[in-house]
């Protein structure tokens, strides 16, 4: 199977690889997929609690080139967006941007899920730590 140039670019030069501090109340971590299924994505967001804007995003992915590209692209797209705006990102937009073939659509779905899971984690943390939110 031939890969699109954009997939190759993200695979060869992945953006925002790394990890943020899981314990930081302003960091949301989303981990989706399973090793048995051949793909696991970890996507982390750091949100400015005053503005709700995602100021940083990092990822690590175990999976095929399309999975790596989808999650790399997702970190690029969420940065600078508010949490609510990031929730609007649809997997189909990732498919279009990366020209993913039908067998790779699940990679884009996983990336969308990873964004949602990270935001969900962030919101839970904020609900659990209202004081820290005020302090910061």
């Amino acid at each position, binding site marked *: 199977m031939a*890969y699109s140039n954009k997939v*190759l670019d993200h*695979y060869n030069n*992945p953006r925002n*690889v790394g*990890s943020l501090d899981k314990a930081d109340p302003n960091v949301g971590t989303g*981990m*989706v*997929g*399973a*090793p*048995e*299924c*051949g*793909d*696991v*994505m*970890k996507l982390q967001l750091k949100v400015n609690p005053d503005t709700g804007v995602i100021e940083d995003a990092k990822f*690590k*992915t*175990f*999976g*095929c*080139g399309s*999975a*790596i590209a989808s999650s790399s692209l997702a970190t690029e797209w969420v940065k600078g967006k508010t949490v609510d705006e990031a929730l609007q990102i649809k997997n189909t937009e990732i498919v279009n941007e990366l020209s993913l073939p039908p*067998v790779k659509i699940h990679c884009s*779905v*996983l990336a969308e*899920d990873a964004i949602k*899971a990270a935001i969900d984690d962030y919101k839970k943390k904020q609900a659990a730590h209202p004081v820290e939110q005020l302090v910061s």
Partner: protein
Amino acid sequence: MKTPIYMDNHATTPLDPRVLEAMMPYFTERFGNAASRNHSFGWQAEEAVEKGRKQIADLIGASPKEIVFTSGATESDNLAIKGVAEMYAERGNHIITAATEHKAVLDTCKKLEKHGFRVTYLPVKGDGLIDLDMLREAITDKTILISIMRANNEIGVLQPIAEIGRMARERGVLFHTDAVQAVGKIPVNVEKDNIDLMSISGHKIYGPKGVGALYVRRKNPRVQLTAQMDGGGHERGMRSGTLNVPGIVGLGEACELCGKEMAEESARLGALRDKLRHTLESALDEVYINGSMEHRLPNNLNMSFAYVEGESMLMGIKDIAVSSGSACTSASLEPSYVLKALGVGDDLAHTSIRFGLGRFNTEEEVDYTAQRVIETVKRLRELSPLYEMAKEGVNLKKVEWASR
């Protein structure tokens, strides 16, 4: 050294130039039909076919009359299994095979199950070998055929066919072996191993695609087959169709070359394979060999590189042609059923890479491959959340994955 490097010789092999040279005249001036009995064009073709038959027979310790030409090993497997099933249906309806066989055997057996045959799919042990005691217990008075491959196409593991052949002979059961990956690479002898039927392919041994053979024993016992294609009754009535003369010339020549060069070639490839293995193992942690190293083809290495998905690995070493047991690289979107049968978890199956060395690989290519694999594994592990978790001491087996 030229790239891309071809190291996927279990999938197919390049045609040896010496084989091509032998074939060429049979495309052009010597184009006759080997079944034309009344003119020199036909005689010339027939002579070439009979030479090919002898070259194949000599390599496997058979008589030329026991060689039936086919379009390839898939056809040979189909003809052997369906042909025996149909011919011996009155004697019994039970066939024994193994879980790690090639799809040409497994799917043929599945088809027969739909027609009332009973098939036992023997499991394999962790090293990929069948358990001979289980085979012994599986044989019943209804068993007509045992089909167990000589060497596995994914992991190169060699089944104990001498023991299987002896057991089959003692119990009066026919024994078929798919020897596609083994013939020409390691010694195979139909007499010594009591083989009754054996599938051979041209393009796995530096011969052409589209030609194969089935060895069919003629005495002690005389094996009969029901033809699976109707037509002119070629090949002793077992396989109709005008013979592929250039293909047969190529298959014959390929066999002769393998016979002459096997000892030297297998020693050379075995040493290169071991070098590849040791280089990878000494540079990387958490790499696992799939299948027995002791009972294995000299040119095969199948390794799992934990936490690095196979397709992403292939992308990283794109100037080297190898293959992976990852689901993403298979038509079925399932990870390798062969590795699954060995008890390799899906997580590790997704990270497996098969290296298949061949006649034209050099030491320089092997060294380059090892370095590229090492770099790529290191890079992708930096990207892998699983590697990070494992290094933090997380037991990945105990994690509840948010899988869909």
